[in-house]
């Protein structure tokens, strides 16, 4: 879809998935790595646990559909080459600390003077300006600052993050959307612009609008394991099954109470509760709990019998019931169960990507959406360091073989 467009990807380990999103959509993404390779190549896990810059699965996960060149942007000769690449680029992505590239005369103003149509995307922890713009960061720090961290975890322990770092993925996704919105505008104005994305703001999305509690005058939710505590009442959303856990949207109110009533009818049919319990007003049940019309002990009793029901079924049985009867239940799955899932298989989701350098193929997460006219293609496996140096420096910039040898000897590429 984005085949005509060239993206220069100068991101560090923070920003890699942004270019991959554009690459999946068809853009020609050129990853510009320091000589010796991106620091992201040092991040594990590794193929067969062999630490090697071309075998980082972290790298593989976020650099498909890109080509790679190496370039030392710390020296004038390297910056000259980057400027030549910028002349023909449509997008530039970067995730350095604020000011880092500007100090090297590679800031937005510098590059816009070479190519006014350039869309220059900066992905940073806290944004390019403001009192915390220069804060030291990491995934955990951003999740703490942006609001999602406090909401997850066990009540008697500190808040807990997702075990796979997420913060910059959210920021990169916002950056990709911003880049495409700016591109849409460029098709009429012919002009580029700077896009400044703060990961702190991006992850606030993962509070499910709970970051608005204070300005709206609503009480803050408190975390409990597998659910949420609202106004002091424990609302479980993860329930135990015979062989693991399931997620159930067991909630109330005018939209969700209908589903709870449906599930309670079945639980009654199966002999786990009496008819009076089945026939409770599940639409008003939540409000009745908060107002005290229903005592908390009644909710505890209901939770107990729902738990008896879930514990007497396997995850697979509960999923089948959900599909057949319209219950709001899914299994809590391991990564292995995700990859082996018949649902994803039936849609041809997971895709084989050949790694000729290792003589093997590996299964990758597949197209993020199915496009009827212009399907996503996995054209390129994640590149090895500087794999496309010759093609781009010789083929596109027209450097001679001698010049390339000299630049390599000087450690510039």
């Amino acid at each position, binding site marked *: 879809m984005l085949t005509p467009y060239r993206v220069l990807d100068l991101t560090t380990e923070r920003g890699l998935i942004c270019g991959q999103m554009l690459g999946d959509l068809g853009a020609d993404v050129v990853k510009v790595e320091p000589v010796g390779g991106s620091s992201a190549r040092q991040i594990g896990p590794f193929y067969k646990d062999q630490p090697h810059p071309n075998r980082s*699965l972290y790298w593989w996960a976020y650099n498909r559909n890109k080509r790679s060149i190496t370039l030392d942007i710390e020296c004038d000769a390297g910056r000259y080459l980057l400027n030549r690449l910028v002349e023909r680029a449509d997008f530039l992505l970067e995730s350095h600390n604020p000011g880092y590239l500007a100090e090297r005369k590679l800031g937005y103003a510098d590059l816009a003077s070479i190519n006014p149509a350039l869309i220059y995307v900066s992905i940073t922890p806290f944004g390019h300006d403001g009192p915390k713009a220069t804060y030291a960061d990491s995934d955990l*720090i951003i999740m703490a600052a942006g609001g999602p961290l406090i909401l997850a975890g066990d009540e008697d322990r500190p808040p807990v993050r997702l075990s796979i770092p997420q913060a910059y993925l959210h920021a990169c996704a916002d950056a990709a959307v911003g880049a495409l919105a700016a591109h*849409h505008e460029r098709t009429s104005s012919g002009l580029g612009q700077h896009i400044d994305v703060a990961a*702190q703001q991006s992850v606030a999305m993962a509070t499910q609008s709970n970051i608005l509690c204070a300005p709206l005058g609503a009480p803050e939710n408190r975390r409990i394991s597998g659910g949420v505590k609202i106004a002091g009442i424990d609302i479980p959303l993860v329930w135990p099954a015979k062989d693991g856990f399931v997620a159930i949207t067991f909630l109330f109110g005018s939209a969700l109470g209908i589903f709870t009533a449906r599930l309670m009818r079945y639980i009654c049919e199966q002999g786990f509760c009496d008819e009076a319990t089945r026939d409770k007003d599940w639409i008003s049940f939540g409000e009745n709990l908060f107002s005290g019309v229903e005592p908390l002990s009644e909710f505890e009793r209901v939770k107990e019998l729902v738990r008896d029901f879930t514990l007497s079924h396997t995850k697979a049985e509960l999923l089948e019931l959900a599909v057949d009867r319209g219950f709001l239940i899914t299994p809590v799955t*391991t990564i*292995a169960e995700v990859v082996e899932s018949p649902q994803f298989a039936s849609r041809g989701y997971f895709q084989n990507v050949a790694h000729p350098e290792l003589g093997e193929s590996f299964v990758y997460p597949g197209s993020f959406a199915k496009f009827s006219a212009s399907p996503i293609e996995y054209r390129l496996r994640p590149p090895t360091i500087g794999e496309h140096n010759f093609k781009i420096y010789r083929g596109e910039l027209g450097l001679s073989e001698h010049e390339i040898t000299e630049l390599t000897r000087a450690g510039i590429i």
Partner: protein
Amino acid sequence: MPNRLPLDDVKICDFMWVMAGPASTRILADYGATVVRIESPNRIDTARTLGPHLDNKVGPDSSGLFANCNAGKLGISLDLGNPSAREVVHDLVRWADVVTESFSPKAMRAWGFDYESLRKVNPAIIMLSSCLMGQTGPLAKIVGFGNMAAAISGFHNLTGWPDRPPAGVFGAYTDYVSPRFTAMAILAALDYRRRTGVGQYIDQSQAECSIHFLGPAILDYTVNRRVGERVGNSDSVFAPHGVYPADGDDQWVAIVCRNDDDWRQLCSAMENNDLARDSRFATASGRREHRHSIDSSIAAWSRTRDGAAIESLLQSRGVPSHQVQNSAAAYRDPQLAHRGHFVTLDHPTVGKFTVEGPRAKLSRTPAAVRRSAPTLGQDNQHVLESILGYDETQISELVASGALG
């Protein structure tokens, strides 16, 4: 002259509801797209029933979640099962560049509003369907919400402590991940159509796009057959790396040492020479090995101190740290204030409503939140008259048909 918005020529007929879908068209509305949001007058949008609620009072216009996901859109009420609604839908589809929907599969077909039907009305239309598991497959018809997609795509099991059941990621996690994929899919399809004239249908599974956020864990399984598990707040490289108690009820501070230098700075800030001198802790692998002992020392120091004060102290020494912000702290956060993260808008029935601002800052054509989320049917007259060009007779016939509720 008012600022030009980057998508001010994009028109979207939006059947999406609840969270994941509306959050995506909210982004496009911020960038200037005209989004006509269709709501059922009979079946309330679930988002309107979910908190946080303004002044903690439940009501159709008090949901902060709904307000946040729908700011900047026009709202019309339309009973899609009413025969008179058909022509309105067709006229909106003729007007629109993009049709979006997030019902469970088959709902649009049952109304006759599936892609094959709508492309007869507007051959260049781009239509995107977003649902939990996608339009096809044995689980296609599962009804559900993002917490369920987060469970079935692996996120829940990877959040929590190794010695405890999964704590689960907060709320409907895939509803936070998938909207950006939705928005970029639409923008890419618009560019493709601009160049080729060809519209298309996009089938988005919220689970499938969200799995991209678990890439390294998926590959660790498919390549190494290792099944990743939740590890609390441990990190594979950084140590210490954790969340520590601060003074006050449910107050916490996150502290991370990326390298030995951060560690020395942390020890110095804590004025703890014993830790600094302990050779077991000189390297990251040593600190990971002895993490429980180190975590106890840090917690003993942090527990009597203010979280924000620890954050400032450690950041002044270049050590990654931040208090763990709840909404109250975030609302006071000078950085979020500087970035304009909270935006207060006039609202037709409740006075004022605060929502989150646009995420990416575009230097020349910045996004803007132009109005509060619509009340049910707030823009019926405007949409029918000004966008679809209906005359008074047509509008009164439509009202009489009951299609508007």
